[in-house]
């Protein structure tokens, strides 16, 4: 069901990642193709943020290689990286009450000259991206007054306006209510159809099942396993990750394809 076999957007080989010469993550290897979703699972403090920062080029690799969009990350400037990969952080802090349409327009920055401002065409692209996520009605609102779910949509629209092939989301569903969580997951599934690659971290193994994505599991600062949710997310793995007993249950609703959910044993 997933659109796979696209061109590789990200290839990480034997990478050590960390700050100031101290490795937080060791020997990470995985790859991500266009149209694929990779969910990152692991307990708090395992190094997910470090992984994101390395993939975005904020911090240099300590060893190994990281190929983004076919080029070595060390040779890419922030502007080049922003044209390949977009980042949706966990909290969106701006001290200023910008309009939603302007916030989406910030996604165009990597396509502008160093001292120039966005053109009419940039505005149209931004408006189109907001529309595509079904959030066009938010356009004239003030960003800082939106709800958490609305803000998340706006920031994803900004990532689309960046025209990146690859979107990185840091816990996109945290702090959202249940309905908005499901809405975000749906939108992310749709992105695959536009052959966008998605890398996201989550604390819910169920999200990985819902996304039908690849899963990368991390524990104690190293990569545990990477593969399909069916093969990786077993009760055993989840227990070793989170220290609680979990039943992975198969079911099929309304004659649809078989799906899996996690049911913690209480």
């Amino acid at each position: 069901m997933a659109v796979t076999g696209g061109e590789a957007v990200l290839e990480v080989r034997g990478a050590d990642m960390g700050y100031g010469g101290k490795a937080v993550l060791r020997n990470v290897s995985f790859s991500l193709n266009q149209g694929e979703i990779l969910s990152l699972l692991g307990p708090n403090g395992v190094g997910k943020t470090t992984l994101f920062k390395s993939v975005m080029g904020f911090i240099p690799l300590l060893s190994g290689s990281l190929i983004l969009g076919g080029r070595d990350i060390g040779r890419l400037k922030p502007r080049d990286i922003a044209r390949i990969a977009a980042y949706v952080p966990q909290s969106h802090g701006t001290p200023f009450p910008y309009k939603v349409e302007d916030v989406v327009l910030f996604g165009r920055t990597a396509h502008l000259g160093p001292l120039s401002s966005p053109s009419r065409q940039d505005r149209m692209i931004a408006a189109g991206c907001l529309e595509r996520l079904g959030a066009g009605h938010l356009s004239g609102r003030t960003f800082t007054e939106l709800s958490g779910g609305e803000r998340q949509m706006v920031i994803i629209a900004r990532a689309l306006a960046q025209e990146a092939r690859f979107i990185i989301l840091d816990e996109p569903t945290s702090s959202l209510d249940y309905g908005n969580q499901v809405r975000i997951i749906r939108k992310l599934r749709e992105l695959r159809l536009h052959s966008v690659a998605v890398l996201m971290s989550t604390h819910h193994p169920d999200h990985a099942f819902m996304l039908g994505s690849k899963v990368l599991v991390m524990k104690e600062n190293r990569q545990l396993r990477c593969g399909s949710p069916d093969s990786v997310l077993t009760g055993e793995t989840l227990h070793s990750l989170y220290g609680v007993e979990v039943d992975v249950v198969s079911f099929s609703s309304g004659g649809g394809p078989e799906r899996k959910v996690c049911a913690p044993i209480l």
Partner: protein
Amino acid sequence: MKTTAAVLGGLAVLLAAGLFSLFLGRYPAGVHDLLVFLLTGRYDDPNLPLVITGIRLPRLLAAMAVGGALALSGAAYQGMFRNPMVSPGILGVSSGAGFGAAMAILFSLPAAGVQLFSFAGGLAAVLSAVAISRSIRGGHDPLLVLVLSGIIISSFFGALLSILKYLADPDDKLPAIVYWLMGSLADVRMGDLAVVLPLVAVGAVPLLFSGWRLNVLSFGEDEARSLGVHTGRLRMLVILCATLVDASIISISGIIGWVGLVVPHIARFAVGPDHRRLLPVSFLFGAVFMVLVDNLARSMASVEVPVGIVTAIVGAPFFIVFLKRSQARPWQ
């Protein structure tokens, strides 16, 4: 549009206050004579050209440049540091300039020497703050390190300045230093402006064009980088340009506080947080504010009051009323 109204209003007040400032001064120049001179260049009183083009006009231009430049650099710094309490002096430019000027006064250098020393002192202070912050690595928030380095350098140069004051001759040198530190536009001449204004322009133009990137930077370091802004390079550009502007300005005006802190807030309330509008409007409002305050400094007492004192005395209650009245909350 709010922006158009703000710009037109600002220009109107600037024109009126600027014209008015040409009448202010001890030399009696009649309204008729002055208008004729301004419009046609003809005059009967042989002293008129000296009084107007030699003294009052340069002072008006200086007030506009000083207010505009300080407000512009203040607005750019507040955007870059993402902090409403930041003023142009945050990285030590005024303490460095104050120390430089005091040193020149102590050595009995002429006015040009005082300007040069204060300019060099301002630059040296900010560059040391930047160098300190760059030498500190390892997981620290770069903005926080920069602010702390600025505080360190400010207090260091403040202490050096105190030494110079302590050593200065209390009969002539010390009063000169203290008076310089209070800030004044009384001694600015066309020759000074011819040197300083090009320097101000070199710094101000890139600042005025960095509005969009400062907007992006308001989302924070990582987010701005992920949007394609070379944040380190942008920070250096803003710091170098603002420092060039401030050090040049301080070298002719002495230390005038408050403008760079307050005026960006007023501009932000008038035209919103978009730096593409905020930066030029801050410049305009700063110019207006300074001309008004300088007019007041020249006319409120029989002796002229140093303008740096008036900015704070007028500005403080004005800002309090302003904060109470304004309903918008641009900083969340």
